[in-house]
């Protein structure tokens, strides 16, 4: 499977995701934001980091870059797109995903391992997980507080577009288990066609037991499925 990782000035999880993709046998290419052509790919990843310093609003400026037009075209023609952390923020800024990511409720950057629950395991991104499987995944962000209007929220629920929710060790979605104030503990969502996934947690940080755990591996192997 061919993947492309888009690199913006200020992206800083680009190497991490590339390492994870290569470990999972993807044929990966890095794509510089000034490029106007996207190599043919089955998966496009927008990595985490601080594109353009997160100035103005996180993801806003990257959302206006040249390459993004190509990403939008590819997405609209069904290519799989994965946005992680800053990548998720960029996807909402381009409109590929609805909703937005506000500042964390406590106004602080948060880095820690949290539990998330797989709500929808019938997607290209999640089919190797069990329904309601609890994963322990690292988060690292300032603006991860998902917000959207009631109409969109209803749509997310009705169409089963919520991929992951924050939860505690036992799978309860309570406020204590919500690290950043996200609406209904939402950690990751899909678009209506389910070919785009945006998520705040970092699956690429969880593919190596010596560093953390391997809870992120199945996200990549789902894609290969």
């Amino acid at each position, binding site marked *: 499977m061919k993947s492309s990782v888009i690199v913006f000035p200020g992206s800083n999880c680009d190497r991490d995701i590339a390492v994870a993709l290569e470990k999972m046998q993807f044929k990966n290419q890095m794509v510089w934001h000034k490029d106007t052509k996207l190599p043919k790919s089955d998966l496009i990843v927008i990595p985490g980091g601080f594109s353009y310093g997160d100035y103005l609003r996180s993801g806003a400026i990257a959302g206006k870059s040249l390459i993004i037009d190509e990403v939008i075209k590819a997405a609209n023609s069904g290519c799989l797109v994965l946005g992680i952390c800053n990548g998720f923020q960029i996807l909402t800024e381009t409109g590929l995903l609805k*909703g937005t990511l506000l500042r964390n409720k406590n*106004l602080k950057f948060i880095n820690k391992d949290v539990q998330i629950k797989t709500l929808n395991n019938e997607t290209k991104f999640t089919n190797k997980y069990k329904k309601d499987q609890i994963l322990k995944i690292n988060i690292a962000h300032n603006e991860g*507080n998902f917000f959207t209007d009631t109409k969109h929220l209803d749509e997310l629920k009705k169409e089963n577009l919520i991929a992951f929710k924050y939860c505690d060790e036992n799978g309860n979605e309570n406020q204590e288990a919500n690290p950043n*104030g996200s609406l209904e503990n939402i950690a990751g969502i899909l678009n209506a066609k389910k070919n785009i996934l945006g998520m705040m947690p970092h699956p690429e940080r969880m593919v190596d037991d010596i560093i953390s755990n391997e809870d992120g591996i199945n996200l990549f192997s789902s894609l290969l499925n």
Partner: protein
Amino acid sequence: MKFSVTVTLKKDVLDPQGKVVENTLVNMGMNNLKSIRQGKHFEIEVDENDQKNAEKKVDEMCKKLLVNLIIEDYKINKIS
């Protein structure tokens, strides 16, 4: 021509920052504080003599980049 743009969160959008600022001020003893909302402020100078045109330009900047219309409102004012 110079304009100021004020960008604020829409009423029904949660404003965690505003809340914290409000609480902090109240804790600091500012008990006459009724409410506080925080937003962004831009000062934009454009090279354009026609006010209509200039305003249109600024409006375009807002719509295209400066404002996230899903969660934010904005107001444009001419300063000079």
